[in-house]
């Protein structure tokens, strides 16, 4: 970007004109997004980013392609914001498939009246998160809608990455005897966002765990190449991922409540509100199914990474009724861990 692009956007708030396709929109795109995301693939400002195939082909043998929309409320919360979430979430959706994340798109729908300062803050957050993760936001779209037609801002990011040859993670790969690992405490994001909404008048130090997990996953796959499957435990939480594995792999899974890492504040929030932490969303946690022989290597690799220090072996895959997930409770009893029904918490990501 050339310096003359700076501060063309002189109004304090976004209006419908900024989505109209004319000068105001160009100013908005140039001043807020292009300036923040600045990279060689975006710079020509064509209608599409042009990505060399040979560069991709050198990195692996399959393209990974994913998309996700972000509507979290509130848009700023302890530990992150909607922009950081939109970048991390899509990076993670690529990374859990074993892909090296490379490029993102960014489509935003803005409610008129949002301040330009807020939009700057979100774009800066996206840019910083992407830069730190080593991915580039290479194309995008901006729409402005009337007041009430959306809530502040909705962001859709689409990502592409490359899966190295030989990496074949799959939800149907779990086998009896495999162990189930997580990289840390569950439920921080869901609890933090819930508290950040402020309508519960709870005061905590909870922070979202929102983070890009691709380097952690790369470390895991290097140390435990036999890893069967990885998924990030976002909406629906740990229980949803476990149920998906049990159904797809036609196995039963048993986890141990005592072994499952949970922060005291998450426990407290759940006790007060009657929520089950197994269903709370995470934005920086994976569930990995690892063959028994590689458990130690996997745990060591996870714990050596700053995002996996509290990694734990929480349970195992077993023969038994296909699709059945159970938990040995801390009390010594056994209960079913079913899929979440309905919405425990709307607009969590």
């Amino acid at each position, binding site marked *: 970007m050339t310096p003359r692009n700076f501060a063309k956007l002189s109004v304090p708030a976004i209006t419908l004109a900024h989505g109209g396709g004319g000068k105001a929109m160009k100013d908005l795109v140039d001043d807020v997004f292009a300036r923040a995301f600045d990279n060689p693939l975006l710079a020509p400002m064509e209608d599409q980013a042009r990505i060399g195939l040979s560069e991709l082909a050198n990195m692996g043998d399959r393209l990974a392609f994913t998309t996700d929309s972000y509507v979290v409320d509130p848009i700023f919360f302890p530990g992150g914001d909607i922009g950081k979430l939109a970048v991390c979430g899509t990076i993670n959706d690529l990374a859990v498939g074993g892909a090296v994340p490379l490029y993102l798109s960014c489509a935003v729908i803005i409610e008129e009246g949002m301040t330009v300062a807020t939009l700057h803050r979100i774009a800066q957050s996206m840019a910083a998160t992407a830069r730190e993760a080593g991915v580039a936001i290479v194309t995008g779209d901006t729409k402005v809608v009337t007041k009430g037609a959306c809530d502040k801002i909705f962001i859709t990011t689409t990502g592409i990455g490359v899966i190295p040859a030989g990496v074949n993670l799959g939800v149907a790969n779990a086998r009896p005897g495999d162990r189930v690992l997580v990289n840390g405490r569950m439920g921080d994001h869901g609890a933090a966002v819930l508290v950040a909404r402020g*309508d*519960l008048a709870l005061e905590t130090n909870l922070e979202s765990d929102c983070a890009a997990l691709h380097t952690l996953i790369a470390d895991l796959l290097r140390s435990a190449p036999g890893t069967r499957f990885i998924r990030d435990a976002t909406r629906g939480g740990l229980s949803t991922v476990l149920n998906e594995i049990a159904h797809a792999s036609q196995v039963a899974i048993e986890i141990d409540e005592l072994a499952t890492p949970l922060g*005291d504040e998450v*426990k*407290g929030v759940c*006790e007060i509100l*009657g929520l*089950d932490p197994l269903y709370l969303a995470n934005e920086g946690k994976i569930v990995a199914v690892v063959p028994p022989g590689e458990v130690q290597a996997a745990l060591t690799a996870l714990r050596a990474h700053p995002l996996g220090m509290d990694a734990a072996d929480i349970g195992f895959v077993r023969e038994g009724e296909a699709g059945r997930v*159970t938990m040995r*409770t*801390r*009390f*010594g*009893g*056994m*209960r*079913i861990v*079913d899929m979440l*029904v*309905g919405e425990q918490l709307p607009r969590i990501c």
Partner: protein
Amino acid sequence: MKYIDEFRDRAKAETLVVEINRLIEKIAPPAPLAIMEVCGGHTHSIFRYGIEGMLPPEIELVHGPGCPVCVLPMGRIDDCLAIADRSEVILTTFGDAMRVPGSRGSLLQAKAAGADIRMVYSPMDALALARKNPDRELVFFGLGFETTMPSTALTVLQAEREGIRNFSVFCNHITIVPTIKAILDSPGLHIDAFLGPGHVSMVTGISPYHFIADYYRRPFVIAGFEPLDVLQSIWMVLKQIAEGRCQVENQYGRVVPEKGNIPALAAVARVYELREFFEWRGLGSIDQSGVRFREEYAAFDAERKFTVPNVKVADPSVCQCGEVLKGAIKPWQCRVFGTACTPENPLGALMVSSEGACAAYFQYGGVPKRVPEHA
């Protein structure tokens, strides 16, 4: 976590289970002992912590009617929807009530269709919304046993003090004792003992239950909701049976005072009067089992402020909620359990709330009960 983990201690649980087994050996019941846990909170705990599977097969837990969301009849939900449909109304309610099906859908569906329905955590939140929206009519969908009755009453008293006129309550508060009596009077129904309600008793004290021990000769132990509370209460029930006693005992002494919460009871007495009868889903009409506002507080009574259809709607004929509530059949023995009636599409009320026996069974249950070693 302090004050939580102590009540979920595995070693203490194991000791209690050993004691329970010892008492069962001593009692040697000819048929399994049917112990009804009255509250939905107990039911939830039993399933969430897998307590049933820890007990010997000689103990059968019967899941009682103490989930106020589950026993709300369809007609009341329809009346509530009629109020919510009015354009001037903001209807507020506890989250559990959102999914209860009426004859033309649930509050959640009405909300999606455009009704202004908001979830609150306390009636005071509803009153705050009334202050904030003076041009709207704020209606709180009040429901629950004596546990929540006082907070609704205190909110109404607060609204009266402040002269807030755009606040009213659609009152569905109910009282558990007449229903326990109705269950005990049901022909052909056999319950050997009760785990009594913990948080209801925190308000009412323990005196309302004496007739159950004295007249019906059933042990009655007021029980807390942590898993050790439930196990210890079962142990206390068995101890009474083993010693040939029938008494009201209070396991939940850390929360339940003998005489209850006197200011709360005073607020309840000031604001409410008993209804002649109230309709319970699955159980039918039970005399003096519900309350409404006294004449002095009629201005806060949404039923009087707005006209409601007040039509009685029969439960779906395939539903066997009533038989489950009375403990006559187990949830999975209902003809629509898990087929036509699931937590996603609840037909019967017991499938709606996480404290409903069927939903708890569907979500947490189905883990095979321990097979007796001598079998």
